[in-house]
């Protein structure tokens, strides 16, 4: 039952417009008005730059107190006007958890981190100890209280950030994309903790999350922001029913919603769009049963070329002695599009860094096009295996895009005319011919990622390794990056992506390798791998939502399907 309006709202935003200091003529938020009642669970989504984080900062008073800038309208939290109340004074009412768990770590032990905020409130020592015990117990981190927070897993770090906010005993918890950088297990841990706080402790939740299929099972209301304005805000089902608007706002629909939306466009689905498989199952089973059985579409792994990278009995340990890779035997063949998967710490990045010689095996051998990486310099191997790091900001340093792209070829000692020609081609490839002299550091995430990729590709490697190419990017940005990578693969480049995103692996990869504890557990085509539910889960990898849907429909005679377009074509009887 909708009881909004019957209580005093915990959040009351009226006509909020805001522009950051130094950019006062550029409104980030435009006339936002919304109310949130106590105990609600509100999910927020929108493309990068839509103003989501700024709303969070407005709710806990950082806007305008810390960020300055120009603000119009009013924000009232638990009856306190944020213009007149500092973030420190609001902290006991509003807890905030940011996207990067690491950037929030203040203490050098888990316990210290939680105590930090309470010390700032000048509470007496007994009260601090008791609240810290309680908060750590709620998020189930008591056993780690004396550990360094830096040695926790991603999910645990984010639960610690929640505990640090929780220790204030806030009425409202604001979470800015808290699961964006986590593996599936970490995401589940964090979302279940948040749901428990809402249900058992009555804490109001305002959470930004781009992955609607993960957050919607817990949310009462969904808010879609676009260009600093509220595009949609209503009960989740009602918002989800506006599928076209959501997609246009750069937000990915849950796969099951997308499938039914596509069917509705073809006149094959009537009524409200579902948000869970359970809501869609009966009607889809009915539809499947009415169709004549056909062979399911399958993405065939292309004929393997010769091996470009060969790993023979490769083991690796860091100086602390901890083994990270154990007896790996692996060939990467020309033309492969590999998705390297597994939970954090499984050894994916360590394995990938052996491919371009950044790391050398403790034992065993890595051959790149027949060359032993132990005998070759990284700069020589860079012309064979390109490695793009997850964060483009670790790479970009030049004043112009042109200089950034030229850096690798200069290091390789190419002549000026060859460099100039290569830069022109690279700019054309990423669609930035007119931005040759632009400053890369101030571009959007998609552009920075594309420049980072192009600055590696310009050295003409035969294999491209990308660490989490789409992480942190909104749907449209991720799509743009993945389309570019896919196009490169079509042109003959061998591609390896390290990813947690099962949907991305299902849609683009021709081969999936799943790792656990430094060992390759599964290696095969996405169709083969995404049938191995139990073995995948042992590597902490979930099935794509479509594969889950396919399993449900499988009982009605359908074969295994792992991609949305394939599922749609099967259901429309094409």
């Amino acid at each position, binding site marked *: 039952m909708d009881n909004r309006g019957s209580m005093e709202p915990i959040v009351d935003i009226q006509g909020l417009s805001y522009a950051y200091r130094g950019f006062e003529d550029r409104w980030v938020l435009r006339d936002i008005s919304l109310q949130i009642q106590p105990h609600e669970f509100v999910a927020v989504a929108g493309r990068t730059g839509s103003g989501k984080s700024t709303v969070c900062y407005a709710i806990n008073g950082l806007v305008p107190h810390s960020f300055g800038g120009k603000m119009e309208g009013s924000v009232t939290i638990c009856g306190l006007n944020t213009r007149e109340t500092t973030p420190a004074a609001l902290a006991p009412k509003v807890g905030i958890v940011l996207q990067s768990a690491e950037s929030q770590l203040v203490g050098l032990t888990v316990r210290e981190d939680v105590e930090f905020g309470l*010390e*700032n409130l000048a509470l007496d020592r007994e009260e601090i100890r008791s609240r810290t015990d309680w908060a750590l117990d709620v998020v189930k981190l008591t056993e780690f209280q004396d550990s*360094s927070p830096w040695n926790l897993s991603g999910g645990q770090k984010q639960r610690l950030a929640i505990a640090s906010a929780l220790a204030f005993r806030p009425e409202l918890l604001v979470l800015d994309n808290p699961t964006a950088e986590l593996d599936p297990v970490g995401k589940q841990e964090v979302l279940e903790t948040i749901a428990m706080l809402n249900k058992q402790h009555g804490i109001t939740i305002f959470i930004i999350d781009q992955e609607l299929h993960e957050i919607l099972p817990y949310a009462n209301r969904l808010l879609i922001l676009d260009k600093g304005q509220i595009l949609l805000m209503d009960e989740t089902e009602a918002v989800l029913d506006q599928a076209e608007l959501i997609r246009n706002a750069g937000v990915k629909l849950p796969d099951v919603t997308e499938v039914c939306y596509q069917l509705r466009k073809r006149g094959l689905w009537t009524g409200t769009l579902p948000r869970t498989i359970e809501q869609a199952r009966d009607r889809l089973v009915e539809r499947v049963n009415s169709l004549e059985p056909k062979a399911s579409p399958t993405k065939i792994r292309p004929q393997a070329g010769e091996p470009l990278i060969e790993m023979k009995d490769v083991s690796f340990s860091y100086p602390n002695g901890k083994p990270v890779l154990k007896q790996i035997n692996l060939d990467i063949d020309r033309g492969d599009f590999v998705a390297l998967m597994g939970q954090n710490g499984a050894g994916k990045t360590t394995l990938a860094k052996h491919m371009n010689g950044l790391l050398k095996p403790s034992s065993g051998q890595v051959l790149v096009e027949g060359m032993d990486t132990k005998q070759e310099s990284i700069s020589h191997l860079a012309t064979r295996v390109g490695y793009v790091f997850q964060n483009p900001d670790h790479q970009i340093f030049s004043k112009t895009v042109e200089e950034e792209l030229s850096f690798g070829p200069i290091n390789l000692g190419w002549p000026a005319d060859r460099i100039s020609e290569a830069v022109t081609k690279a700019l054309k490839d990423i669609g930035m011919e007119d931005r040759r002299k632009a400053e890369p550091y101030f571009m959007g995430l998609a552009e920075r990622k594309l420049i980072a990729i192009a600055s590696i590709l310009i050295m003409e490697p035969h294999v491209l390794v990308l660490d989490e190419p789409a992480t942190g990017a909104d749907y449209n940005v991720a799509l743009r990056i993945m389309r570019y990578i896919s196009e490169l693969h079509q042109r003959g480049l061998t591609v390896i992506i390290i990813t947690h995103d099962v949907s991305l692996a299902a849609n683009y990869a021709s081969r999936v390798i799943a790792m656990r504890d430094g060992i390759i557990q599964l290696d095969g085509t996405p169709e083969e791998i995404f049938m191995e539910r139990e073995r995948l889960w042992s590597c902490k990898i979930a099935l794509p939502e479509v594969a889950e849907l396919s399993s449900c429909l499988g009982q009605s005679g359908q074969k295994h399907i792992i991609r949305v377009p394939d599922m749609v074509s099967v259901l429309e009887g094409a």
Partner: protein
Amino acid sequence: MSSIRTSYYEGNVSTLSRVDPRVKLLYIVWVFMMIMVFTDPAFQSFTMLTLVLAAAAGGLSLWKVMSTGKIGIYMGLASWVLWMIVLRNQGTVLLNIFGWTITDYGMLKGLAIALRITSVLFAFLIVAMATPTRDVITGLYGLRISAVFSMVVGIILRLIPQFQSEHSTIMEAQRSRATEFDKGGILTRFRKHTAYIIPLSLRALKIVSDLSIAMESRAYDPYTKRTFVRELKMQRLDRIILVAMAVFLVASIALRIIGLGGLQLGTLGTGQ
């Protein structure tokens, strides 16, 4: 994934780790004053000896301490060599290497300066390796040092290892672009080094900005009263150390006033 070091603190339970953080911070100041009082390396060696004793009391291996502070050793050595070059025409010639003379004055004066540079750094390192960062901050507050300064010291101690981790990632990212930092002429090397200096600086700004948001959201205000969970209480050992430091400092100043502890070289007797 290698585990990230987030603090110099080694976590050993030792005699030094039990010493009140205020006393340990005063020890750093004491080392600075003691090493400045004397210019004769023979007298300075007493202060250096206390560093060895402090490391032993902290259960720290000398190798680990020296390896952590190797930059200080390099700086000390560089300074020593420079002074020997600058003062090559003063004092008695000890050696002649390819036309460069090394004098006793240059050698001892250089050594004295090198000890000044390294001693304070190693005193700081030994204390940091035997003291949780939060205790360092609590100690600074306890010594009535400005709240802002105390928190800044704490944040720097918290951030240095994170910056080291960022530095390592950025270096790997640039090596993947065929960057060989140790090859090429001065200008080429300078350009190559900007490839990590600029991203590291920008990342540092982002990290500091994120941390300040996190701290402010947790009610941090440097100008308001706060509680410290850790209670500071001077024990018998702390008082003994304080008294010993005071006695040695006064005695050292007295020795210097009566003319001992200055650099004495044959007829030179500069006492500088």
